């Protein structure tokens, strides 16, 4: 019989090996899936993990694109990780991402076509405000009316999507857009554009911000009192209260932090890669970031890597679609497997497997 025995000491070696093991298992089972679909499993897996990084045809373009795809995931996931550590569950980052984009976009469009160096920083500020505002609704409802922030934040995603639709066809619609939905293209409005830092790479200010955030929030989490309080509240709310943590304030701060970073990500995405407020502006970064946060073990540096891994599977997965005619759903299953193995392997971090006799 197999028995699980809790580990008294967590082994750092096992913690480090497990993600690699999980990726290995995903490749094996994913390979079987691809083989069943009639594709060469080695070629498919090579194309997902190797070609975007190393294939000479794609790599020059795809390498920076991985960072561009990863940046919003990393920013949002870092914000979420603080709340998750303290058992404060913001599931609505997607909505906060949208509201950050709408707030900053509305500000930018209000000043169109005037040029000013102050506009972009002000839009960044408004992006954060938009996200914080949307996250403050579940925060205040939870602190004052004891509602469940999981449900409220999630439901507000759908409200935000309606606001987005209203903005695209109504108050932010491009007056020169021939009646089609969607705002003016902010990436073509110099003062509002989130420009490339390295020309031709696609790497924009949001990518730089994501990297800086990793360092900043790593320090905040491990070297600052706030990070300690967050972690303590998650492990033992009672102990946290006794040590002077105000649980209400913590809920508000954690939701504001995650909302603000999601709004920031929305702002950078709007003014850079996406360009326009459109009905389909949001493509699920806010939800994928939840997975990225857990894959990265709620640690900013871990999130940096898990964000890039997710981005790699997106970019590589696209290649397999039109190079090998693999259906998009197969890639989603493959991504799902990766998460499943990583999270289930976590068991080995906390438990030892013992074979015992009856």
């Amino acid at each position, binding site marked *: 019989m197999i028995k699980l025995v809790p580990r008294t000491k967590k082994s750092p070696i096992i913690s480090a090996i497990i993600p690699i093991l999980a990726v290995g298992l995903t490749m094996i089972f994913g390979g079987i899936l691809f083989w069943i679909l009639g594709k*060469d499993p*080695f*070629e498919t897996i*090579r194309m997902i993990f*190797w070609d975007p990084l190393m*294939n000479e*045809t*794609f790599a020059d*373009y*795809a390498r920076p*694109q991985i960072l*561009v*795809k990863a940046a919003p995931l990393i920013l949002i996931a870092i914000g979420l990780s603080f709340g998750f550590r303290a058992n404060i569950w913001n599931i609505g980052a997607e909505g906060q991402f949208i509201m950050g984009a709408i707030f900053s976009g509305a500000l930018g469009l209000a000043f169109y076509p005037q040029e000013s160096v102050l506009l972009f920083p002000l839009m960044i500020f408004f992006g954060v405000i938009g996200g914080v505002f949307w996250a403050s609704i579940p925060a205040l409802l939870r602190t004052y009316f004891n509602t469940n922030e999981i449900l409220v934040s999630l439901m507000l995603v759908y409200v935000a999507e*309606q606001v987005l*639709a*209203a903005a695209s*066809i*109504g108050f932010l619609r491009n007056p020169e857009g*021939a*009646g*089609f*939905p*969607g705002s003016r*293209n902010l990436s073509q409005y110099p003062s509002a554009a989130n420009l490339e830092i390295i020309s031709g790479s696609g790497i924009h200010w949001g990518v730089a911000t994501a990297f800086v955030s990793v360092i900043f929030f790593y320090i905040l989490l491990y070297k600052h009192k706030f990070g300690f309080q967050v972690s303590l509240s998650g492990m033992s709310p009672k102990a946290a209260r006794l040590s002077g943590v105000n649980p209400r304030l913590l809920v508000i701060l954690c939701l504001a932090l995650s909302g603000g970073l999601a709004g920031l990500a929305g702002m950078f*995405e709007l003014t*850079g*890669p*996406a*360009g*326009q407020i*459109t*009905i*389909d*502006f949001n*493509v699920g970064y806010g939800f994928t970031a939840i997975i990225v946060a857990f894959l990265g073990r709620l640690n900013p540096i871990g999130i940096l890597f898990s964000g890039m891994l997710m981005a790699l599977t997106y*970019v590589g997965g*696209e*290649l397999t*679609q*039109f*190079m090998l*005619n693999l*259906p*998009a*759903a197969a890639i989603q299953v493959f991504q799902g497997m990766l998460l499943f193995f990583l999270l289930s392997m976590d068991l080995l971090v906390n438990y030892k497997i013992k074979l015992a006799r009856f």
Partner: protein
Amino acid sequence: MKKIINFFLTLSGILLLGSGVFAADLKVGFVYVGPPGDFGWTYQHDQGRKAVEKAFGDRVETTFAENVPEGADAERVMTQMALSGHDMIFATSFGYMDPVMNVAAKFPNVKFEHATGYKRADNVSTYSARFYEGRSVIGHIAGKMTKSNVVGYIASFPIPEVVRGINAAYLAAKAANPNVKFKIVWVFTWFDPAKEADAANALIDQGADVLMAHTDSPSPLTVAEERGVFAFGQASDMLQFGPNARLGSIIDDWDPYYIARVQAALDGTWESTDTWDGLAPGMAALGGFHEKIPMDVRAEAMNLAVAIAGGRTHSFTGPINRQDGSAWLAEGETADDGTLLGMNFYVEGIEGDIPQ
């Protein structure tokens, strides 16, 4: 360890070579906004892709990427397609417009075909179909077939294309049956079978006995079949989803256009063009009429279709007033394409407002 690494490097090298051996004269990529299994918009584009494969055999290789979100992701997918040696890319959704323009500027040798957009360049063509011509025909049938005089209309987004369809269907229905009323539900999605079904049920509950949809899934038709009312196939024929309910269908038939454009690219005669074809060349086609439609109505519908295709009738022929009662088209005047392309108003008689 080094040996293992070497082994894998060699292996990947072999695989790399293997993938480059086969080469057709022309490699054509298709970018889809939905899944080819939607039995609507994307399904018909994929039928067009298959028609190209069938027409040219080994001379042309086709590939596709499905469920590609509009915006940054579309730009990346098209760039990777261009990098991987595609000579021609069909971008089959309106929202791919700016990404197409960006990628086309970077790859002047790749030919782009953008569906339903209005921005063009030397290597970017646009194409769309005059679906409103088909909507006039099914509008006529709807007007004749409704007993409750309420036609339910499931609309996706308030864009000119959809508004034009509502107006065309309403005018034809009204001409066929002066008592007809349209109830319109905006679902703000192109493809969400559950939401489309909810809308269909709501419309039937409000007394509609004929449904029209301008969304991509067959679910309104499935609901109509269950509830015993009539509906139409949209984008594809959809007969199998409502054998008793489906009165007719408007079919997006991209096959001839796709074959012609690929042929032009093969011949070296491809040029940037703007195509807006209707019933005449068959880009908007009609599915077979249901036998429940009386013979005389079928004949009227056929005559209308033939007259539109032959240019003898226009879906928008005056006198037509706008919803607010102001004059739009005088007696005998027909709408110009510019107004149609930007249509953002209802014609007189339609109740409710276009969401703003």
